[in-house]
């Protein structure tokens, strides 16, 4: 490769040299030819002049060495062709050729030098030009950058509604006002920078003195300042402005100017105001509903947020801060602590919601019922981090519930007594029966004793019958008295079959009075229920009383059937069916309404009270018509109830 390149270069060099030396031969040949043409036309012999021209051309275009070759050639030709001129003229020609050749040599050298110098100068100029171009490009780039930076800054100021400024402290003259200053403060940029006094006129009259004073003080004391004021835009719109300023000193420590920013904070202020208001509403709502809210950290067992109402509910002062959260445990009723903690531990383990009711004891001795609900907060990886929730003071509700319960119990009792009043005649008969028997048995006893020979055996039998009679009377009375007794509901395990039997015994004579036969179909394996015996007796009494009333006027069979059985889903079912008039048509749904009655002297409370009693036991009470005749009332009671409260 290298050989071929060198070869090529060498070839080119050789061709160039051949051309230059060729020029020498060609130009001399041309001079010779021209001289022969001159000779042909008998013109003066101009070979010398033509040869000089050929030498000159060869020197100029061919270079020094070809020029010398041409000179030698010209001398030889002259010598060879025109030697007739004599030795002197020949020598003169040669001398002229040599001198001419020397002149041309010098000329050629000078030209070469000049060319080199021109080339050098041209190179210098090109370089200078390049540097200049580079500088121009850099300047342009810097300018572009600056322009862009200024555009960004202006954009940033516009977006943040923040203007920047510089004010000469000594004169109060504004040295710099950014574009955004005009917009924020409501001035027109075409009017130029406003004077400080003009600006002050725009400040809300209530804030003007403050701005003037704070600016003056900053100039005097050479200090930073930061304040809020309102500005009135030309349209009358009032905007909130926040200003921050910083003093700038010269190297000798003199105050030169204040630089600062003005920011339109209207939106932020309004948002803050809205938030404040929303918080106030929330606090008010919490106060009204006696609900305190909280957030607590599960890992550290400390509170992150406690609302004002929370402190009030627990009887703490807000000044106690978050430490009140840990102190609250001491205020929880000792009987409720374990249950409450258990519920929270469960929710913590299961990462689930919790809901718990407990009492707190306040330092002044008052007790409060609280209802707390908590909701778990999980982090991105699903770990339990916090619980958020609320605690509501339900003391009033609890007291109202208690009062309601009391009122219901009172009403139930009154209803019971009313029903008993209706039963008076039957009850009298019921008591009369054993008393009549007792009187007869006592007389019989006396008769045996009063004989001439008293029969003690018979007398003893008669006397023991008296005991039975009296015992029976006493039983009826005590059973009746129980229904009249005023007592708070007592929750205890109750055998419904036993209650049915007792009520059938109590109501038996009332049924007999209207020739009604009573039949019991009682399941042998009936589980017990939790409830209040007297209230459940009352339900049975009401239902049986209704059935008897429904059958008083009907002809044909009068039969009251009381049926008990185990139901589905851990409950038992008691049905009271009759062969009476049936439910009032089109009003079957209303019979459980308060004050609904079809009886001339009914209160309309019996079924209403019965249903509320059954429901308070967690059961249901409903009615339907029998397929053949009469109505059936059915009640369910749960059999898995551990405790009512």
């Amino acid at each position, binding site marked *: 490769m290298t050989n071929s390149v060198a070869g090529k270069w060498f070839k080119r060099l050789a061709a160039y040299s051949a051309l230059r030396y060729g020029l020498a031969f060609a130009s001399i040949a041309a001079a010779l030819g021209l001289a022969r043409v001159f000779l042909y036309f008998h013109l003066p012999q101009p070979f010398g002049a033509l040869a000089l021209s050929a030498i000159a051309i060869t020197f100029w275009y061919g270079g020094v060495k070809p020029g010398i070759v041409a000179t030698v050639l010209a001398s030889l030709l002259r010598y060879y062709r025109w030697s007739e001129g004599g030795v002197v003229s020949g020598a003169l020609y040669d001398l002229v050729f040599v001198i001419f050749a020397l002149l041309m040599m010098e000329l050629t050298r000078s030209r070469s030098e000049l060319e080199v110098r021109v080339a050098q100068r041209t190179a210098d100029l090109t370089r200078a030009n390049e540097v200049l171009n580079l500088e121009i490009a850099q300047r342009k780039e810097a300018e572009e950058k600056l322009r862009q930076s200024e555009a960004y800054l202006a954009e940033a100021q516009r977006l943040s509604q923040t203007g920047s400024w510089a004010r000469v402290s000594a004169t109060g003259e504004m040295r710099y006002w950014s574009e955004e200053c005009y917009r924020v403060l409501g001035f027109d940029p075409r009017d130029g920078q406003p004077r400080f006094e003009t600006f002050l006129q725009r400040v809300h009259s209530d804030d003007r003195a403050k701005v003037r004073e704070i600016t003056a003080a900053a100039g005097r004391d050479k200090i930073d300042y930061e304040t809020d004021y309102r500005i009135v835009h030309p349209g009358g719109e009032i905007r909130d402005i926040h200003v921050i300023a910083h003093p700038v000193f010269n190297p000798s420590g003199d105050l030169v100017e204040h630089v600062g920013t003005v920011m339109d904070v209207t939106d932020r202020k309004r948002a803050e105001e809205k938030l404040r208001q929303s918080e106030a509403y929330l606090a008010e709502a919490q106060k009204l509903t006696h609900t305190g809210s909280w957030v607590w950290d599960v890992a550290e067992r400390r509170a992150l947020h406690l609302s004002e109402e929370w402190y009030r509910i627990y009887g703490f002062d807000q000044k106690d801060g978050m430490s009140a959260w840990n102190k609250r445990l001491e205020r929880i009723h000792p009987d409720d602590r374990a249950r409450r903690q258990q519920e929270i531990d469960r929710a913590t383990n299961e990462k689930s919601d919790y809901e718990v009711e407990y009492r707190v004891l306040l330092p002044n001795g008052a007790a409060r019922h609280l209802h707390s609900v908590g909701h778990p907060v999980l982090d991105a990886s699903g770990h339990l981090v916090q619980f958020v929730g609320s605690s509501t003071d339900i003391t009033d509700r609890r007291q109202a519930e208690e009062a309601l319960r009391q009122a219901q119990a009172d009403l139930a009792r009154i209803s019971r007594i009313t029903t008993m009043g209706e039963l008076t*005649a039957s009850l*009298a*008969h019921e008591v*009369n*029966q*054993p*008393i*009549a*028997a*007792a*009187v*007869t*048995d006592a*007389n*019989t006893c006396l*008769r*045996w004793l009063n004989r001439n020979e008293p029969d003690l055996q*018979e007398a003893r*039998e*008669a006397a023991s*019958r008296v005991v*039975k*009679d009296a015992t*029976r009377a006493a039983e009826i009375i005590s059973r009746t008295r129980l229904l009249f007794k005023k007592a708070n509901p007592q929750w205890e395990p109750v055998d419904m079959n036993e209650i049915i039997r007792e009520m059938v015994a109590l109501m038996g*004579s009332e*049924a*007999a*009075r209207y*020739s*009604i*036969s*009573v039949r019991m179909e009682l399941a042998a394996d009936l589980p017990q229920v939790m409830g209040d015996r007297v209230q459940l007796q009352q339900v049975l009494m009401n239902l049986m009383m209704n059935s008897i009333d429904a059958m008083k006027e009907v002809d044909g069979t009068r039969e009251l059937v009381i049926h008990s059985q185990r139901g589905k889903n851990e409950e038992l079912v008691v049905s009271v069916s009759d062969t009476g008039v049936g439910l009032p048509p089109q009003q079957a749904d209303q019979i459980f309404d308060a004050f609904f009655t079809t009886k001339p002297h009914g209160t309309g409370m019996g079924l209403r009270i019965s249903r509320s009693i059954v429901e308070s036991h967690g059961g249901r009470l409903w009615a339907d018509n029998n397929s053949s005749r009469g109505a059936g009332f059915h009640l369910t009671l749960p059999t898995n109830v551990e405790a009512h409260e």
Partner: protein
Amino acid sequence: MATQTKAKLVTIVDDDELMRNALQGMLKSVGLPSQAFASAEEFLKSGQQQQTACLIADIRMPGMSGLELQAMLNAEHCRIPTIFITAHGDTKMRMQALRAGAVEFLAKPFDDEVLLDSVRAALEN
């Protein structure tokens, strides 16, 4: 007379067991034999109507009442002297019973001497 009392019994119909026992005990103490039934239906079924010289019946009983029993016996031309005892005696009921041929109508608790006199009178007739 002796044969009469031997052949004829005093029959008691009352749904209350204590009362049945008391009446039977009373009659025994004066030497009168008796039989007792818990309902009118039981008595009618027993076929003891003809053996009964005197009937002591309660008026209000589940099922057939004392007055219905009397009416039924009358209808069968089985006129047994009947003494009613009741805890709910009112005038209307008393008149109805006496008109149907009852010999006595007593309210509980009753004077057993009055009852015994009536029983004796019934037996003697």
